Every structure is written in C-alpha cells, then in structure tokens.
C-alpha cells in the first residue's frame, strides 16, 4: 500500500515474569523471542524488524491491565503473553479504548471467544471447549464403566466437570460422584479417601499446576493411581509431569501439542527449538509460537502494524503449514481452528512425555462459535 | 568478707534517658553488711540510680564499681550474675508465670546461698498458699512480697530495694524490717530507696538525699530525728 510503514513492528509481551505463573511466563518469553528471530531470518515481515518489550503482569488481572496499558502507551500496541484467562478478559475490555490488539495464546476460558469476544481479541490456542470436544469420541472407546470426577473448585474445574458429566452421559457411563477442592488445597487425603470408597474404575481429573502435582503425588501414595484409570484435562502436561516424576506415567489426558507431532513443520520447529534452547518445546510454547506466526503473517498481509488493520487481516487468515498443519482464524469468534489430541504420558527415550494416541481434526475439535459472541 | 570494702560505689555518675540528663555526678558507697538509704522527693532520680546500675538508663560520665571492679557497659543479666538482686519499683512481675515460677526465675543468676524457695515461702507464707496462682492474681501487697522474695532468691551480695514497703500492710513492713536487719547482719549490703521513713529508720544506718539528680546531703541516721530527716528530704 501507499503508506506502508517502516520501522520495527512493536510487540508488547505482558506476561508473568514473577509469581506462581512465572514458569509459564518463561515459556512465553522463549516462544516470542524464537518466533521473532525466525520471522526476521525468513523475512516474513518484508524487511521490517521486530521489537518486543516485556512487562510483568504477575498473576493479577489488575496488574496485567496496568502492564498492558503501559506497553500500549509506549507504542507496543500488539499484545500477547497474558497467562490467566482473567488477565486476558481484563485487558480485552480495554483494547478498543487503547486502540490495541490482543492475541491470546495461553488463556483457555471459553469466555474470551464467547460473550466477552471483541474485534480486537483473538485466540491462537485451544480453548476449554475444544478440549472437551475431544472427550466425547474418546470416552466411547473406553471400557471403564464407573467414573468419578476430581476437579479444582473454580470456574475452569467446575466447567470441565460439567462437560465431562455431559460427555459421560452421552457415552453411557456411570458417574458416581464429583469432588471439588479449592485452589491451593494442601491435603487431598480426605478427597482421595472418598474416591477410594467409591470404587470407580475411571477418574476425570481437572486440576492444574502445582495443585495437580500435589494431588498426583498424594493419590499415588495412597495407592489410588494403581486402582483407578486417571484421565485429565491439563493434569498431565510437561510442567506437571516434571514435577510428578515417574508416577505420571500412564496418565491419560488431552494433549494440545506434542513435540512428536508428525508434520514436517513440527520436525523442523523441534529441531530448531532444541538447538536454540537445548530442550523440547512445551505445549504453550508451541501454541504461542503459532500465534506469533499468525500475527506476523497478519502484519505482512495488512502491510501495517496498526492494530485495527492487523485485526482485519487476522480475521479468516489461514496458514497452511504450521506445526499443527493447516490452521484458520475463524472470523465469527476469533478462535483459531486447529486439531486437538488425546494421549497418555509415556516414555520417549528416557524422558516422560505426553504421547499422542488419537488426533481429532480441527473441524471436529473446534466447536461451532458460541452464539453469545457478538463482535462489535 | 571484708566489712569495710565498698560493695557498690557510684563515683560522679551521670545518667540519661535518651537525651534527657537525669543524674548529675552522683556519688555514694554501700559496704558489705551495711544498709544505705537513698531518700528524696518524687522524680529526683532515685529509680534512675537503679536503672543505671542495671544498664537500663544510659550511663554517661563517672564510674560505677561493684566489688571494686568498674562496670563499664552494664547489662542487666551481668549485674544479676555478679550478685546484684533487685526488687524494682512497680514490682514488674510476670503475669504469665506462677508465683513459684516467678520466684524460681529469681534464681536465674545461678548463685548458691541461703535463700531457697522454702526460705521465701517461710518468710511470706501467703505466697506458699498461692504458689500456683499466676503472679499477678495476687493483691498489690502480695505482689510486693513476691517481688522482694524474687530478689532474695538471687542470694545477692547487694540487695537493691526500690520502695519495697509500697502497698504493704504495716505489720508486714515490721516483718520486712526484721528480715532486712537479719540480711545485713549476714553481710548482705542493702541499697534501700524508700519513702516510708519508719522503715528506713529501722533498717539503715546511713542515708543520702537526692534532689534533681544530685546528691545534696549525706550522713548517718544515728541521732537524727524524723522531722529533721523530713526537712532534709524536702529541700
């Protein structure tokens, strides 16, 4: 276009540099720097360089809002990196006022692409609804009859439990009981004891982060993991697997990404990543990386880094050969259509990793847009 | 023990609370087996003498000698271990300790001697009766007995008593006079700060009058009558 800009494309990375989510913040940092470097090398941005600035969003939505505002006022109007969905939502409401854009790569709450959706907010990672979409087909194939649910007692845990309950009904399973434990629960013994008493064969676990590790370790000490078949939403992800150690082996779960994905793009990505960081990419790293690719592609397509134009360009944007294969940013609700997976923790070489056992195509894995999303 | 060696000597001592200069060149001596009374109106600095000795008030110029050794930077527990037993003004008991424990604490300086728990209980039988009660569930006078008893438990060479008769029934004051006399006789030095002159007369032989932080009068109590003593103090 005539007024094609020059100068660097400015990306504001508001993420958790300190506090309990700082490990995820590290992942964001790695993914953003990696993607930027790659884009520069490949010339994705047609000669423009990428400049990114970090700001600490801690764990608090209010701090996230403040950090993002600061980035925006400093000219970094393309935002990425927030960890909790609440942070994403807090920032989402301000985007228009700030004339900024936010691309979520970690926030999973359906709300972002449902009633809170807006023209300036996009999601390039798997939403909770996408995770749950995998469960139904998979559950039918399982022999276990009696199930229990163990979930974290907050929005995500409750939603996950609800979805699982529905899926179990459809699959003709018998759900014996649901247990909820507050975030930060230290002693899961009373829950574990109750689960044992139910004598179910399968257990749906919707606990994340440190709580997941504690629950896993304690359940193992009580011998629970030997007598029940545990499946999880984000209970067995690389971070928690590392924390739990050998007991994680054999736990089933939804897998948003695995470094074993059999696409050419992924093989190249994993190799380059290992070379750069001397470790395997984790799920949020991969998703953030894809998100950054999309963002850069949109800037290139718009020929501008003005948020409004980039947002327009993002709508309906498809990338053909990402590590997930073909992905498309759905215009109706700004959710990226991508495949999702199911599998279990297994040994790959000497290492424990989620290993994909079942892949669900993006068309099935990405449920239809939520009717409550009205773009404005 | 040499009856004439001073157990405690203040030599031109200045003392402060923060920046407030309270004692100005205070000097006096207490010998073994002797009781010296410090007299004076309220607020002249009597208690400050005790606090300086213990290191609670800041010690400026001058020297404090105990058993002929200068105490440079007095620390409360060192004073106690060196043989100074104190019954503080206002009693300062431990409400969270029983009467018995309050007394046992008095023995924390680990000095052997004649005073034991039983000895104190014999002196103040009411304390034995209420031995397991918290230290402050006692009447005011009983608390005073406990404070004195606690100071005795240290088996001190020098017993410092800051207004020990405060709040005590006259009969008990009579008993105290006898006890202090007996202590003196056994060689314990006594520094007695008192408003109750009848007790002073019965216990001490020498006195020093303090006014505005200075010793303004010193002398023997022999042959001084009550009114002239009162006049000395009132200056």
């Amino acid at each position: 276009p005539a007024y094609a800009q020059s100068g660097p494309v400015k990306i504001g990375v508001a993420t958790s540099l300190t506090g309990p989510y700082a490990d995820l913040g590290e992942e964001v940092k790695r993914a953003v720097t990696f993607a930027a470097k790659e884009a520069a090398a490949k010339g994705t941005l047609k000669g423009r360089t990428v400049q990114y600035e970090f700001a600490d969003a801690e764990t608090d939505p209010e701090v996230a809002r403040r950090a993002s505002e600061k980035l925006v006022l400093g000219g970094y109007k393309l935002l990425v990196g927030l960890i909790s969905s609440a942070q994403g939502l807090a920032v989402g409401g301000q985007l228009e006022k700030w004339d900024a854009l936010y691309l979520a790569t970690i926030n999973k709450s359906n709300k972002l692409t449902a009633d809170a959706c807006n023209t300036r907010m996009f999601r390039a990672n798997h939403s909770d609804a996408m995770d749950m979409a995998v469960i139904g087909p998979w559950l039918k194939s399982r022999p276990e009859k009696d199930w229990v649910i163990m979930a974290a007692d907050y929005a995500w845990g409750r939603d996950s439990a609800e979805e699982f309950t529905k899926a179990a009904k459809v699959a003709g399973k018998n759900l014996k009981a649901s247990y909820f434990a507050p975030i930060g629960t230290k002693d899961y013994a009373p829950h574990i004891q109750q689960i044992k008493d139910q004598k179910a064969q399968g257990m749906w676990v919707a606990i994340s982060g440190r709580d997941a590790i504690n629950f896993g370790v304690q359940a193992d000490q009580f011998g629970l993991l030997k007598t029940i078949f545990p499946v999880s939403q984000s209970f067995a992800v690389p971070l928690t697997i590392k924390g739990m150690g050998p007991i994680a082996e054999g736990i089933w779960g939804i897998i948003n990404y695995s470094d074993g994905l059999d696409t050419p793009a992924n093989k190249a990505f994993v190799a380059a990543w290992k070379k750069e960081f001397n470790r395997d990419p984790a799920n949020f790293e991969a998703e953030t990386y894809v998100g950054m690719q999309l963002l850069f592609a949109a800037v290139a397509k718009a020929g501008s880094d003005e948020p409004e134009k980039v947002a327009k360009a993002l709508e309906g944007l498809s990338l053909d050969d990402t590590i997930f294969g073909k992905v498309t940013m759905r215009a109706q609700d700004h959710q990226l259509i991508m495949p999702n997976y199911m599998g279990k923790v297994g040994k790959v070489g000497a290492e424990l990793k989620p290993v994909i056992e079942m892949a669900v195509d993006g068309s099935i894995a990405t449920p239809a847009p939520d009717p409550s999303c009205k773009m404005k | 023990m040499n009856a004439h060696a001073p157990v405690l000597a203040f030599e031109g001592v200045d003392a402060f609370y923060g920046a407030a200069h309270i004692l100005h060149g205070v000097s006096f001596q207490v010998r073994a087996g002797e009781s010296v009374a410090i007299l004076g109106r309220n607020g002249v600095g009597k208690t400050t003498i005790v606090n300086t000795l213990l290191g609670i008030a800041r010690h400026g110029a001058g020297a404090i000698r105990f058993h002929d050794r200068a105490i440079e930077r007095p620390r409360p527990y060192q004073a106690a271990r060196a043989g100074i037993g104190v019954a503080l003004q206002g009693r300062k008991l431990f409400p969270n300790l029983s009467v018995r424990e309050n007394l046992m604490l008095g023995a924390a300086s680990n000095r052997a001697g004649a005073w034991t728990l039983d000895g104190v209980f014999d002196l103040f039988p009411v304390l034995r009766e209420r031995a397991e009660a918290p230290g402050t569930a006692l009447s005011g006078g009983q608390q005073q007995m406990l404070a004195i008893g606690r100071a005795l438990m240290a088996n001190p060479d020098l017993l410092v008593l800051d207004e020990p008769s405060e709040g005590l029934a006259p009969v008990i004051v009579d008993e105290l006079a006898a006890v202090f006399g007996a202590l003196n006789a056994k060689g314990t030095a006594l520094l007695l700060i008192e408003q109750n002159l009848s007790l002073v007369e019965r216990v001490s032989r020498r006195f020093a009058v303090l006014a505005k932080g200075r010793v303004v009068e010193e002398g023997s109590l022999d042959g001084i009558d009550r009114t002239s003593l009162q006049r000395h103090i009132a200056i």
Partner: protein
Amino acid sequence: MLIQILNGLVYGTFLFAMASGLALMFGLRRIVNFAHGALYMLGAYFGYTAAKLAGFWGGLLVAALGLAVLGVALDILVFRPLRGRDPLTTLLVTFGLALISEDFIQTFWGNDTHSFAEPALLSGVVQLPGTTFPIYRLAIVAFGILVAGGLAFWLTRSKVGLYVRAASHDPVIAAVQGVDTDRLSALVVGVGAALAGMAGVVAAPILSISPAMAADILVDSFIVVVIGGLGSLGGAFAAALILGQINVLGVVFLPELTALLPFLLMMAVLIWRPTGLAGSRV
C-alpha cells in the same frame, strides 16, 4: 470414617509442625514473623538440594542445621536491633525478608515445581482394616507429636523454658533476674527457624516445593497460632488438631465451604475468646 479422622490427625499434626516455629518466636520475641513461610521454604529447598547428595535424612539434617544458623543470624542481625520498636516495623521487615527470599529462591532454583521423594524407609502403605494407608503420613503424625512433646518438655520442664516464658513477657525484667536474654532469644529463634525448616522438608514429599510455597503456608500458620492463643504452643497444638478434623469434616460434609472453614472457626473462637484458646494467660 475412622480413616478420615486419621486423615484429619495427619493434617492437624502437619499444621502444628508447620506453625510451631511461628508460635515459639512470637512467644519469645512478640514478633509477628511474616518470614515464617520463607524459613519453611528455605528449609525445603536446602533439604531438596542436600537430599540429592545425601538422601532424605541428610536433607532433613541440612535443613535443620542450615535454618538454625539462619535463625540465629536473623535474631542477631534483625530482631535484636529492632527490639523495642513498633511491632509493625518488625512485621514489615520480616515481610521484606520474605520477598527477598522468594527472589533468592527464584534466582537460584528457578520457578519450577519439584517433588521430593519420601525416604525408602517410610514409603509404601500399611494395611489397615478395610483399606491401606501411606506409612509416610503416619510418620508425619509421629513428627508432629515429637515436636509438640519435645517443645512441651523443653518449655515446661527445663529452666530454659521458664526463662523463655519470662522473657516473652518482658525481656528487660527477665534480664534483671540474670537471664541472658540475648543468647536465649538467639537460641529460641534458631530452634523456631530449624523447626520451620524441618517442617518444610517433612512436608515436601506430600506438598511439592516451589517459590510460592512460602505464601501458601503463611496464612495457615497464622490461623493456627491465633486460634491457639498467640505464643501458646499448647494452644497451637490444640488448634492445629481441631483444624485438622474440621478440614476433613469440611471436605466430606461441607465441600462448598472448605476454604473458609478455618477462617470461620477462627472468627468463632476469637469472638468467644478474644485471646484465643489458651490466650488468657498472655
């Protein structure tokens, strides 16, 4: 249900082990130690690193010794100079120390969550009527009771205990009686810190370790100590056991309220007895 009562006992004794150091320090120094969680965390990390070389028991020993040294230093360098200052000052200073140690941990051990295996000797389960129970949890009960018994014996039967209680009320007057309160408080803060550190290691096989663990236990420790009556170890023990049972009962019967139950119990106790269960004497 009996098993659940046992679970409550495990949690209760664990709470006590965690909070005992706090009660002890408050008892002697009247210090509201916001760095208590940090001591617990440092103990866990020291232990974690040492355990890689010397096993669980080595880790426990290193944590105890390391924290004891740290505690003594804390007393000499921080608490002693602040003696006589507004309690809010110490509160803030200890809070500052907590922030610093969190940063320290993040810098040297990173943000990851680690787990810490129980010693082989105590791993596995015992068969109880109708179910199995992890041996390690019984060991926690033993540890909690050992700490409680040891402290009770120390504080009520030994002279040091008497001195501690006296100095807790008024250090200057205690010193006048011949108690070297400086050494005493260094000792007590050292012991308190060592207990916190050991608790960190003992808890680690159940609660993974991470830089957030300090904040996690801080509030719980304060609840235990406040319900018990500040500075009272007996009260803290009773409070911890009650909280342990309440936790189990809550999970089983009132799952909606489990997170609030400790607070509700605390409110009830404090409104009934403003100084806590054993508080009348302080």
